[in-house]
C-alpha cells in the first residue's frame, strides 16, 4: 500500500506548518484537504494579524495561508486539495476521496489538523434562508465575491463576530447592529471600535428571539436580556434585515480523531466545557503516532498563530521519534516554539481569562474602559489616563488608542523614528518615547492590526487640525472630498474635508486618510463619511 511517513489532514495553519517542518527534516509527507484552496480558514482572516514578527504579525491571514503552502511545497510536501479524508482506520490507514475514487494510504504518523466548526444557537426561525454562520458569509464574500445579504445583523461579539462584522462593512453591506447576550463586547476592543466609529451600534445584553419572514428572513426580533440571559418582556424590537450571521463560538472538529479511536472528551477549559481531543505536550493523542493540533485539538489564543506553532512542535516530536532529528534538538526547538506560543497568551483576552468579568484594570494598572466593553468605543474621558492615547506634541504625532492588553507589537516595529515602544512582554500597552519626533509616515496607522492609531496634527492651519486614520473601504475618498467626521461612537460631529489619501505597498491595502476638521474636534473626530 502507498505509504507516507506523515499524513497531515487539513491544509490550514497547523497542518501546513507541521507538514513543512516534518518535510524539512527529510520526511515523506502528504497533506490532504477537502477544500479547493489551501490555508484552511485563513481565507476568513483578511485582517492583519496581531502578535510579533516571530508569528507573522501584521500579515493578513489569507496571505499567511499562501505563504505556508509555498513553504510546504518547496520542502517537498505533496499537497492534495479537494481530497476528503473520510476515515482513519486501524494501523493508521487513511481513506481519502479524490474525485471519483477512494484511495487507501498508510502512514507512520498522522497529524489531524482539521480545525474547528462554528457553534450555532437555535432560536425561532433560525433555519430560515438568510440565517447563516458567520463563516458562511466569509466564504461568500472572500471566496465567491458575493455579498451575503443587503441588511445584516451579526449575533455574537467575540473576535469572530467582530472580524466578520467589519468585513460585512468592507463589502458595502448595511450592517444594522452587532448583538451579544453578554453585558460586554466579547472580542478585542480595537476590533469593536473600528466598527463602532463607522456608525454601527453594539447591542450588548441583547439576544435574537426570532427570524421572521415567509420564505426567507425579512426581519429579526431582538430583545434585551437580564443577568440570566433571559429576554426581558416588553423590550422586543423588530428590525428589518435579510441576513442574520451567527458568530457564537467554535467547537473543535473531532470527528476524525474520534473515528481513529483517540480519546475525545468534554473538559473544563478556562471555565467552560469544550470537547477536547486529549493530547500530550507535543500534540500526540491517546493513539500512539496520531497527533492533533490547532483548533481541532482545542481552543487557543490567537488561533491561527498558535496553530502554526503547535504544528511545528508536533513535527519536531515526530521527526525525533522517526530518527530524523535527535530528541535533544527536537526538545530545544519545541521549547523555542513554546516560548513564542507563550508570547501570544496572556492579556485579558487569553483563553484563560475568557468570560471573566472581574478584570477592571490593565496589567499596568490603567482602568479598562467600561464604555468600550459595553458599547464598543472608548470615551475621550476614559482615554485620558492612557499616555500614548493622550500624547500631545507639536506637529503630527501618533495617538495610540490601544487600551487593553493584547499580544501585539507591530507599531513598535514599523515606526522608523523609534517613537513607539512596546515592552518585551508584547501584551503590554504601547508607550511613547518622548525624545523622538514623529515623521508622519503613516506606517503605524496603517499597520496597526487593531486600526487603533491615529496621527493628529493640531497645527494644520489656524483653527483647523488634521486627523489621519486607517481606511479599508471602497471607493477611497479623494482629496477635496467633503463630508462629516464621525466620533468614536459613530456620531457625526463636524464637517470634514479630505486633504490627502496615501497608499503604499508597505501599507498593504490600508489607505492612510487625512481629514481636516475644526481644531476643537481633533480629539474626537475618528472616521470620515462622504457627503
Amino acid at each position, binding site marked *: 500500500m502507498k505509504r507516507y511517513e506523515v499524513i497531515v489532514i487539513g491544509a490550514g495553519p497547523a497542518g501546513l506548518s507541521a507538514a513543512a517542518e516534518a518535510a524539512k527534516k527529510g520526511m515523506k509527507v502528504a497533506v490532504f484537504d477537502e477544500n479547493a484552496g489551501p490555508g484552511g480558514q485563513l481565507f476568513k482572516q483578511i485582517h492583519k494579524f496581531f502578535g510579533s514578527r516571530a508569528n507573522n504579525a501584521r500579515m493578513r491571514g489569507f496571505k499567511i495561508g499562501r505563504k505556508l503552502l509555498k513553504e510546504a511545497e518547496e520542502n517537498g510536501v505533496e499537497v492534495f486539495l479537494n481530497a476528503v479524508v473520510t476515515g482513519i482506520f486501524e494501523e493508521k490507514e487513511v481513506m481519502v476521496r479524490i474525485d471519483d475514487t477512494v484511495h487507501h494510504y498508510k502512514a507512520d504518523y498522522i497529524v489531524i489538523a482539521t480545525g474547528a466548526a462554528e457553534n450555532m444557537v437555535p432560536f425561532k426561525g433560525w433555519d430560515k434562508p438568510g440565517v447563516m454562520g458567520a463563516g458562511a*458569509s466569509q466564504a461568500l464574500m472572500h471566496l465567491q465575491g458575493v*455579498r451575503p445579504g443587503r441588511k445584516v445583523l451579526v449575533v455574537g461579539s467575540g473576535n469572530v463576530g467582530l472580524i466578520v462584522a467589519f468585513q460585512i462593512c468592507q463589502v458595502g453591506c448595511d450592517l444594522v447592529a452587532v448583538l451579544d447576550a453578554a453585558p460586554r463586547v466579547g472580542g478585542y476592543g480595537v476590533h469593536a471600535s473600528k466598527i463602532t466609529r463607522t456608525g454601527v451600534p453594539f447591542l450588548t445584553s441583547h439576544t435574537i428571539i426570532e427570524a421572521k419572514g415567509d420564505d426567507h428572513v425579512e426581519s429579526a426580533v431582538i430583545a434585551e436580556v437580564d443577568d440570566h440571559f433571559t429576554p426581558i418582556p416588553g423590550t422586543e424590537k423588530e428590525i428589518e434585515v435579510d441576513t442574520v450571521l451567527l458568530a457564537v463560538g467554535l467547537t473543535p472538529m473531532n470527528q476524525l480523531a474520534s473515528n481513529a479511536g483517540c480519546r475525545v472528551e468534554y473538559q473544563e477549559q478556562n471555565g467552560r466545557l469544550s470537547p477536547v481531543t486529549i493530547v500530550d505536550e507535543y500534540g500526540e493523542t491517546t493513539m500512539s503516532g496520531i497527533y492533533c493540533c490547532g483548533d481541532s485539538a482545542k481552543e487557543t489564543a490567537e488561533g491561527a498563530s498558535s496553530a502554526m506553532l503547535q504544528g511545528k512542535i508536533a513535527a519536531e516530536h515526530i521527526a525525533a521519534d522517526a530518527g530524523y532529528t535527535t530528541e535533544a534538538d527536537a526538545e530545544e526547538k519545541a521549547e523555542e516554539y513554546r516560548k513564542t506560543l507563550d508570547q501570544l497568551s496572556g492579556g485579558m483576552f487569553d483563553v484563560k481569562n475568557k468570560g471573566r468579568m472581574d478584570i477592571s484594570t490593565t496589567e499596568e494598572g490603567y482602568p479598562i474602559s467600561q464604555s468600550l466593553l459595553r458599547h464598543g468605543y472608548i470615551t475621550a474621558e476614559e482615554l485620558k489616563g492612557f499616555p500614548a492615547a493622550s500624547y500631545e506634541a507639536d506637529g503630527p504625532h501618533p495617538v495610540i488608542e490601544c487600551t487593553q492588553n493584547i499580544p501585539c507589537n507591530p507599531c513598535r516595529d514599523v515606526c522608523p523614528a523609534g517613537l513607539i515602544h512596546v515592552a518585551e512582554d508584547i501584551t503590554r500597552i504601547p508607550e511613547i518615547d518622548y525624545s523622538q519626533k514623529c515623521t508622519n509616515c503613516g506606517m503605524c496607522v496603517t499597520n496597526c492590526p487593531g486600526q487603533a492609531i491615529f496621527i493628529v496634527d493640531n497645527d494644520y492651519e489656524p483653527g483647523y487640525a488634521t486627523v489621519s486614520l486607517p481606511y479599508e473601504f471602497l471607493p477611497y475618498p479623494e482629496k477635496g472630498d467633503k463630508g462629516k467626521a464621525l466620533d468614536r461612537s459613530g456620531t457625526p460631529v463636524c464637517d470634514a474635508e479630505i486633504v490627502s489619501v496615501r497608499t503604499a505597498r508597505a501599507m498593504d491595502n490600508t489607505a492612510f486618510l487625512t481629514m481636516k476638521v475644526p481644531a476643537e474636534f481633533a480629539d474626537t473626530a475618528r472616521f470620515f463619511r462622504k457627503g
Partner: protein
Amino acid sequence: MDSDMRIWEHPVLGKYEKYEEPKVLHFTLDGKDMTGYEGDSVAAALKAAGVMTHRYTAKNHRPRGIFCAIGRCTDCVMIVNGQPNVRTCITPLEEGMELRTQYGVQTKEEWEAENDEEI
C-alpha cells in the same frame, strides 16, 4: 445579472480572479434561464441572482438555504442535474447545469405526486 450582490472589487482582496475576464455561464433553476460566472459555486450564483431558498424540508416543508457555505451542514442541497442532495456551496457552477428546488429529496412534481397534495 450584474446584481448588486456581486463584490466587483474588494478593498483588501482587490479584484477577484473570476471577475478579471468574466465568463458567463448559463444554467436553469426549475426550468427558468439564469446566468452566473465561471468560478461561482452553485450557491454563490444563486445568491448573486437573489435566490435564497434552495429546498423545502421533508417533514415540515420549511424553506432552507445557505447555512455554512463550506460543505458541512448540508442545508443548501438541491437537485443538480437530476441528482438530489447535492451540496451547492461546494459544487462549481457549470455551463448548462439544471438546478431544481428540492422538496424532501424530490422535485416539486414528484413530491406532489407521491404525497397527493399541492405545495
